[in-house]
């Protein structure tokens, strides 16, 4: 159920797009209305979610310290893993966001009779990095459809991505990597019993959807070979807010509809970890709360048991053992 329902949902999306464009020719709906609406939902949704998180304050300074604190001048301070300054935090966050520092620490524990063994386990780190970086490069590559002239950065990325020069059109490495990465992330979810046990439909759905997007994209480039010039004309018209429907081929609209689905789904899903990682208080704060007082906006007075009350209760006993008293 957790695996089948999201798979069927993605297949349903494919069929809807195929029916809508291939059979009913509702190209305006699938080419213009839905993409615009989805993009609007993406932007508004992300803002909504981030604002909602931001509205909850950070009452305490709770970084998870992963290195030596800054204390005595002759003790080597780990400026990145236990930052005491903003620049340290920037370094820590950059490592986390760009290189997945914490996942790189991953180990695997094995139990052999009465022993535990800790082994290195870098595959999750590698698979995630492979997927995320490929995805980023693919998204950047797609800018070529929306911009004229194509920025040098995008052209450079394309060149780098296709440097193996295999086949015509040139094979992009990221196309392969993204599918490999997603397949790995899916397989570990079904093969590792513990991971399967904790997985929800919401964990499979984005994987299937992204695989659907990658597959339709690859099919378009290497299989059905849609007319790239028409795609660019269409994309430019969208970007210019002067949308023109152009006949490109159903596979293109399937790809576009899946991308639109992802965009509309993104803000309401776990995919928001992409935004959340920037805001996580165990990583994005300096460990300096002994140096600078951290303010809790909702800090309030509490009832305490005062010294005066304590002395009242224990005065005789305190006097007997010679403890100094406020009131004799």
């Amino acid at each position, binding site marked *: 159920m957790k695996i089948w329902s999201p798979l069927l949902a993605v297949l349903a999306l494919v069929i809807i797009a195929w029916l809508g464009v291939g059979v009913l020719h509702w190209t305006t709906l699938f080419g213009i209305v839905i993409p615009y609406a989805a993009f609007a939902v993406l932007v508004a949704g992300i803002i909504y979610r981030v604002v909602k*998180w931001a509205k909850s304050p950070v009452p305490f300074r709770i970084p998870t310290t992963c290195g030596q604190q800054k204390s005595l001048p002759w003790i080597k301070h780990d400026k990145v893993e236990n930052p005491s300054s903003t620049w340290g935090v920037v370094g820590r966050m950059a490592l986390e966001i760009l290189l997945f520092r914490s996942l790189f620490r991953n180990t695997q524990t094995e139990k052999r009779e009465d*022993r535990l063994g800790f082994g290195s386990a870098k595959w999750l780190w590698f698979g995630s990095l492979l997927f995320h970086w490929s995805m980023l490069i693919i998204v950047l590559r797609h800018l070529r459809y929306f911009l004229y002239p194509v920025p040098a950065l995008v052209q450079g990325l394309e060149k780098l991505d296709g440097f193996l020069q295999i086949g015509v059109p040139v094979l992009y490495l990221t196309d392969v990597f993204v599918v490999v990465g997603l397949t790995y992330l899916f397989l570990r979810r079904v093969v590792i019993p513990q991971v399967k046990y904790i997985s929800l439909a919401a964990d499979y759905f984005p994987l299937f959807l992204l695989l659907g997007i990658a597959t339709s994209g690859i099919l378009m480039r290497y299989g059905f070979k849609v007319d790239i010039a028409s795609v660019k004309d269409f994309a430019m018209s969208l970007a210019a807010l002067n949308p023109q429907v152009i006949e490109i081929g159903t596979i293109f609209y399937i790809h576009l509809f899946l991308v639109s689905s992802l965009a509309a789904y993104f803000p309401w899903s776990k995919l928001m970890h992409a935004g959340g*990682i920037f805001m996580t208080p165990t990583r994005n704060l300096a460990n300096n709360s*002994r140096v600078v007082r951290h303010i809790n906006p909702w800090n309030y007075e509490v009832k305490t048991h005062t010294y005066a009350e304590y002395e009242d209760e224990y005065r005789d006993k305190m006097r007997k053992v010679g403890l100094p008293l406020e009131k004799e």
Partner: protein
Amino acid sequence: MAKLPKKEELLQYEYKVPATDWMDTPVEFKPGTYCYGAKGKNLEVVDFPNARDWSPTDEDWKLPEDWKGTVLEGMADRLSKYRSFRLFMDICVRCGACADKCHFYLGSGDPKNMPVLRAELLRSVYRRYNTTSGKLLGRLAGARDLTEDVIKEWWYYFYQCTECRRCSVYCPYGIDQAEITMMGRELLNLLGLNTDWISGPVANCYMKGNHVGLEPQTIISNIEFMLDDIETITGKRIEPRFNRKGAEILFVAPSGDLFAEPGIYTCMGYLMLFEQLGLDYTMSTYASEGGNFGFFTSNEMAKRLNAKIYAEAKRLGVKWILGGECGHMWRVVNQYMDTWNGPADFLEVPVSPITGTKFTSAASTKMVHITEFTADLIYHNKIKLDPSRNDHLRVTFHDSCNTARGMGLMEEPRYIISKVCNNFYEMPEETIREKTLCCGSGAGLNAGENMELRLRGGFPRANAVKYVQEKHGVNVLANICAIDRAAFPALMDYWVPGVQVMGVHELLGNALVMDGEIERTMDLRMQPLPGKGAAKDV
């Protein structure tokens, strides 16, 4: 206390998952794995709701009327107050990197002890009442109704987490199960659902000033016993003074160090050091607790207990505060105290009267960790040490979870150890510093009735100790935490017999050469020192 199972029985588990989905796997209260329920009288002392006597094995937990509304309102309130809570409810991708990082999972194989699943226990309810997908899709979106069984499951598993934060080190988004456990426990406390082992010390600490419930005269007499021993060992009579106004420094230790072995040996180490330095300090019977079991209850309760430290520093008119060896005490001091009860503008930035070092890293809290203080002394050659007095000890060091992952105090104790003993061996890298494995008894779990749970939670740490015992003949597990000192002796006896548990300042007390002392023939435990004095003739 339930009879302890044999090691072989305890190790009869595998990292497998049940055939049924976790939502369909009911919680089973296995004797030896949970604490007694909170007593009504202890909750009343601190004005907690639904105070009554109750046992987790009761069918009816006597929840208050509209308990469901209370929990859901409490959850909504905390979601709006803690970004960590809201964020950690939303952004987990269930990658499973945290799964085998929890010592309770490693020692029990119970999948609900995987941090991710422990969090899902709460997230599933969050989704059901706070997200559109959870409201519409229910179970398919990983959502479930809040029922009494869910409350029981929360109680069982949120008091099976030591808030050690090891999972948070490995999480790619820094999701910290400690935060989620803390929120879960806050919600449970709205219904009067605490454990006896936490609520008892909280009530004690509130009224008497310390968890173990020592009244002022008992603190004095306990210390007297230690002073007698110090006199026997060193020939010197020390006379510390309590509640003394005008002292330069207020020293606050965890009360475990004033109470029982082996913590008292650490306390003897503190007292001997201060005597040798001629430190102008005092200890308080009112603020006689550095630790904070309120922290294992609710944010408000933690603040109420912690308030005594600054209040007493102000009353006594000291310049700054020195804190003893304790784990969660230092997470609280480092990350909470100043925010709760500061600003401590009536104190001065701490300066060591011996070395002149200004502790700028404590410029605002005005509170210094004793290993920072002592490391600074040793670095400046201000005390004379004879590490050979610890030659009969082969030492390894256990980083406390809280000082490692909630502060980053890692080198200071190691530096002291390197100067006070000659035989020091680290445990494997995956088990120390920020990756340190918990003792399995923190966050208020160090009771007797849940010993099986503690043994399981302590197994990964014990396993690492066993490694250095076999490889290097290690016979001492040094630490800087009162709960470690209280919890480890039983765990070591069970898993790694022959390993003693010592605070760093006990080792220091052994090595410290005091002015005018007699020749040392025994260590602080009054065990003969091999190759020294009288023992030579044997």
